[in-house]
């Protein structure tokens, strides 16, 4: 996308230039609403500023990650976007992945240059059986693969948080998904506060917190800004940014795909809300943004990607993203074991 505007044309972007780029202070919720309401011609300038913020406060590296589901489907929760809920008439069947396959996937992920491998389970929270499997999987992967291991296992107890940290899980994913004010429209089987409790415990235990967003679920622009501000207040190490891919059988299956320009505005806004956070492209970008939008986002504040497939859907081929990073002269972040 050619730049057709300048930040000087839009007061909120001039404010952001000083406040976020120069001073390193994220925009407030009210300011984020202004960014999300910018007209189409302002989007290139917003993305360019977000890219400058990312380069100054995060550096030029891009963090690459692969994700995999160790336990798919049959979840007792009712997250309305999720095809893995056992409460909806979704075509996704329950299936467990065995450990050798998990280790193989970790090796393949590491071979792409990825430094992160996230093991995900569709559960409310892990039981002893799952925790034992995670322990076994983490040990096997650490023996055979040079890669950081993250987990996403739902809501945790304090004991489980401490266990994961002691096993060497360096990062834990637990998304807010949407704004507090919209959460009851999306999830009824647990509360926003329960999600925040797990996030707080993860940080207390010294693990990096990965806490993401899923936008395009029918929330308002104000609620999108609210979510960005609530995430910023949590100070997560990483925010994966998902765009709704309406799944058959779920309550949101007929939700319209998010407009690509709105998605780009959101990328810029989330970067301007969180200048130092790893902002990762996650699910749904293929549909919402396509190839061109993916490039624009990487030049608009994104500094991490999930490569390859997602948990139940397919992504762009890993080579497409890796080649794009080469084209953009963006080096892949190198492995640094943090625990």
């Amino acid at each position, binding site marked *: 996308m050619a730049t057709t505007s300048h930040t000087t044309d839009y007061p909120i972007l001039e404010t952001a230039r000083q406040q976020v780029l120069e001073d390193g202070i994220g925009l407030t919720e009210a300011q984020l609403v202004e960014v999300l309401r910018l007209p189409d011609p302002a989007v290139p300038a917003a993305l360019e500023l977000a890219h400058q913020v990312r380069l100054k406060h995060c550096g030029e590296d891009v963090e690459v990650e*692969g*994700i*995999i*589901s160790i336990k*798919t489907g049959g979840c007792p929760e009712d997250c309305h976007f999720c095809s893995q809920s056992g409460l909806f008439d979704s*075509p*996704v*069947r329950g*299936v467990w*992945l065995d450990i050798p*396959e998990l280790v*193989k*996937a970790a090796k*393949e*992920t590491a071979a792409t240059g990825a430094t992160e491998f996230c093991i995900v389970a569709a559960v409310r929270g892990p039981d002893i059986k799952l925790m034992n499997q995670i322990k076994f999987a983490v040990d096997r992967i650490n023996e055979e693969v040079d890669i950081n291991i993250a987990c996403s296992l739902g809501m945790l107890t304090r004991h489980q948080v401490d266990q994961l940290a002691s096993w060497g899980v360096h990062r834990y994913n637990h998304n807010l998904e949407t704004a507090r004010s919209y959460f009851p429209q999306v999830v009824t089987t647990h509360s926003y506060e329960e999600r925040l409790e797990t996030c707080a415990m993860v940080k207390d235990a010294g693990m990096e917190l990965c806490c993401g967003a899923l936008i395009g679920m029918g929330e308002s622009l104000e609620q999108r800004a609210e979510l960005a501000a609530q995430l910023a207040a949590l100070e997560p190490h990483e925010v994966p940014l998902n765009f709704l891919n309406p799944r*058959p059988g779920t309550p949101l299956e007929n939700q319209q795909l998010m407009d690509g320009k709105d998605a780009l505005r959101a990328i810029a806004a989330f970067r301007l809300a969180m200048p130092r956070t790893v902002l990762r492209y996650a699910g749904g970008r*293929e*549909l919402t943004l396509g190839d061109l939008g993916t490039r624009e986002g990487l030049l608009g504040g994104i500094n991490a990607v999930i*490569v*390859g*497939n*997602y*948990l*139940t*859907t*397919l*992504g762009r081929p*890993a080579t497409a993203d890796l080649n794009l990073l080469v084209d953009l002269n963006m080096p892949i972040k190198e492995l640094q074991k943090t625990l």
Partner: protein
Amino acid sequence: MIPNRLTSPITGGFCGHCGELYPQETFDGGSAPPSNVPQTCDVHVGGAAHRECAVRLQLEPPRYCGQCGRRLKVQVSPHAWSASCSRHGTAIS
């Protein structure tokens, strides 16, 4: 992997995305693929009624067995997927 068209769970008379039986004119009962369908591109099976399904199947694995319409057990990994039918075996991407 190009599966055996006559036995693979990702080929046949049922749509891999929605599980519905393809319209009769595009399916001859499974003894042979429709003559107007590219032999290595299963997503084109089904004709206009399943064009949207075909598009969706480019970004997601099949969920229903093409041979019998049963739901498949699908495992997605970062660089591959597998889909298993209890009657018609497993296909691997």
